[in-house]
């Protein structure tokens, strides 16, 4: 067991409260692109968040600058961040309840699917959507994830390789046309590898810029909170995590909006 699967088990003792995401989920899908930090989709209810805070308190965690682990901010797409040391290892735990690019309906289905999972981690399709970030390297990961998807339509939806798509087009022309149309790729583009590659590059750029705009909105909305964070950190110094978190919530209520302008996620 590694620290992140161990933490997932503790967070989910008695009930599934969170789903392992990002780098640690990639590991569980057999791709060794690890992250130093753990990232979870958390259930947006008070019992779940309170349980996780208690687990983190027992670990000796502290709150990093971020949103409180509270349904009001999480519902606005914010993320919460904690850190602790175990031996010589720095462990970071990051939480969201509204992962980007995952609709409410789909998120609800994900929770139902994982209701009885022993070790819940995000599936290939959701992971591919989460990886539609502003980082170039994440699109290579999406390309690899797509190759592991067995459903043809889903594979077409996420594929980053023109050659893979053209191979699928030869075998499933109608399905390919329909799915590619959803991605803004015309039949004419499907007739020439160069045109398809250019369309995939343009799509990647568009997705990267969309994520940049999303993160910029949060950075702007968090500006006032960042201005007082040093004072907040001094204010809670020496307090237990639970006491500190309560105080941080009170301070955040004065400056950190529950959702950024323009609706957030």
């Amino acid at each position, binding site marked *: 067991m590694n*620290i*992140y699967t161990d933490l997932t088990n503790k967070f989910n003792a008695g009930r599934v409260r969170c789903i392992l995401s990002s780098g640690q989920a990639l590991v569980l899908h057999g791709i060794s692109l690890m*992250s130093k930090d753990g990232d979870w989709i958390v259930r947006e209810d008070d019992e779940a968040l309170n349980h996780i805070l208690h687990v983190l308190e027992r670990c000796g965690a502290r709150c990093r600058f971020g949103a409180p682990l509270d349904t009001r901010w999480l519902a606005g797409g914010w993320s919460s961040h904690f850190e602790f040391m175990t031996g010589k*290892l720095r462990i970071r735990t990051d*939480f969201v309840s509204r992962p980007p690019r995952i609709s409410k309906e789909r998120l609800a289905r994900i929770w139902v699917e994982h209701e009885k999972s022993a070790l819940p981690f995000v599936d290939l399709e959701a992971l591919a959507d989460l990886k539609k970030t502003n980082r170039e390297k994440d699109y290579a990961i999406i390309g690899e994830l797509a190759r592991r998807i067995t459903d043809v339509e889903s594979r077409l939806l996420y594929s980053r390789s023109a050659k893979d798509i053209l191979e699928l087009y030869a075998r499933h022309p109608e399905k390919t046309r329909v799915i590619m149309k959803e991605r803004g790729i015309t039949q004419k583009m499907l007739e020439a590898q160069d045109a398809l590659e250019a369309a995939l590059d343009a799509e990647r750029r568009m997705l990267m810029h969309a994520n940049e705009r999303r993160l910029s909105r949060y*950075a702007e909305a968090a500006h006032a909170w*960042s201005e007082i964070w040093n004072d907040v*950190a001094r204010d809670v110094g020496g307090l237990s995590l639970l006491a500190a978190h309560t105080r941080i919530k009170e301070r955040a209520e004065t400056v950190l909006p529950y959702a950024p302008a323009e609706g957030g996620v």
Partner: protein
Amino acid sequence: MVFIRDEFLSEDDLDFANLSEEERDAWCNYWLQLAQQTNDQDADAYSHGVFMFMREPR
């Protein structure tokens, strides 16, 4: 003409699927230990969530 497949990740990255759970965990733990060397460099950075364009105020 030889068909050359697009490559996204290295063979090492993909070989992970062939490991047992114990081997995978051992590798993850080893990697995490090695990764501690960069703690000073990413002390105020975020790898997930909506604060990735920000640094933790110090």
